């Protein structure tokens, strides 16, 4: 790897992790676009070919589910399971960080943990409510009072989450260095030491051992 004037880099996300991120992200954008056409009256009457848009939305949903399952089964399962273990663990430092105090963070900071927990929960609930939206149209016993509401609210919350995520990943000056981690896989080590001190320290100890 070429050294830059900014110093050395440290590997953050491997291929499985990056693939999972981009498989989810691209499917999300495709479903958001088709979903908004189905949902917003101004767009749904403009585009109008409801059956086609609906089918694209459904096929992307199936492709999303298949891609996620394939990556979970064929990818680096050990790594993903370690990730999830870390994401679930909201330790004392994380709780201080969330109260806007300075506290050293691991490979995922507390905000990233919350974002990941919400994204996985929303993904599962999107799939559940989406399944009943689809199935309820075919068997009316499965039309429930809140299916559409849940699907709509998930969209609203996800877009809020996405806007924050995109701002931090692309625009905010002190966090946008992280973008390299999910595209190429590594991040600037000095930056990482400032933002994810516990992780860099643990990496250093494990390489020394």
């Amino acid at each position, binding site marked *: 790897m070429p050294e830059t004037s900014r110093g050395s880099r440290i590997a953050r996300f491997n291929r499985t992790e990056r693939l999972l991120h981009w498989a989810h992200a691209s499917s999300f954008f495709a479903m958001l676009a088709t979903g908004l056409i189905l*949902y*917003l*009256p*101004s767009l*749904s*009457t403009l585009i*109008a*070919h*409801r*059956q086609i848009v609906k089918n694209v939305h459904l096929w992307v949903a199936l492709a999303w589910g298949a891609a996620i399952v394939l990556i979970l089964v064929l990818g680096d399962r050990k790594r993903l399971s370690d990730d999830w*273990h870390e*994401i*679930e*663990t*909201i*330790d*004392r430092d*994380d709780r201080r960080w969330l109260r806007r105090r300075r506290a050293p963070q691991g490979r995922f900071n507390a905000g990233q*943990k919350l974002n990941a*927990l*919400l994204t*996985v*929960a*929303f993904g*599962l*609930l999107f799939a*559940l*409510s989406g399944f*009943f*939206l689809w199935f*309820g*149209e*075919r068997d*009316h*016993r*499965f*039309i*429930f*009072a*809140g*299916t*559409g*509401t*849940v699907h*709509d*609210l*998930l969209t609203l919350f996800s877009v809020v989450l996405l806007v924050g995520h995109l701002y931090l990943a692309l625009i905010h000056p002190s966090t946008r260095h992280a973008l390299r981690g999910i595209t190429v896989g590594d991040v600037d080590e000095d930056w990482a030491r400032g933002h994810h001190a516990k992780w860099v320290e643990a990496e250093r100890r494990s390489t020394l051992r």
Partner: protein
Amino acid sequence: MSDRTIGRAGFFGILGAGALGLFFAKDVTGVLGRAVPASVSALVPTSGWRIYTVASMPNLDPAAYRLRVDGIVESPKSFSLADLQALPRAEQVSTFHCVTGWSVQNVRWAGVRLHDVLKAAGARTGVQALRFVSAEVPYEDSLTLMQALLPDVMLAYEMDGKPISRAHGAPVRLVMPEMYGYKSVKWVQHIELARATQPGYWEQNGYDADAWIGRSNGFGA
């Protein structure tokens, strides 16, 4: 509580709340409709109504509008909007249920009963079904004669005290409140009196022909 259980409890809490929401979340759009300004509700569905079209939305001129009624009749007939309005006027308040899960309570409709349309069109014996063809090609749907003659089925030309708007099927639409909304054909411009029903647009795509609103949908029949 250990560090790990906090995240896990939050995760399963959200999953549980979302799953319960399927059964208990009411249509929040109705509440939003009263809370947000009209400029927002023009953009995002807040009134409860969602406008679904399968082709480009018809824009029919009420003055030039003609409803053709043919099939098992003495001779095919054509009705202008004024002709329909000259038939006995019927009014009703009914709730509109969409198959995708939203509903709008207490919609006020005015129009004509199918019984009066059949009489005016000179229907002959042998009619068992009515096929409603929309100006939104290729949308159509059928009702059996029994269904079409139910006391709360009408060809409506007014909604909530005003002529039906373009988005809701101007100038004339079918209202069949006991079935899901895809049976209530908008922009009706042709009724064929037939011996048997034909699969409508959504029925060709897997929907039920008899779309009775069940008791399990959370709204009551």
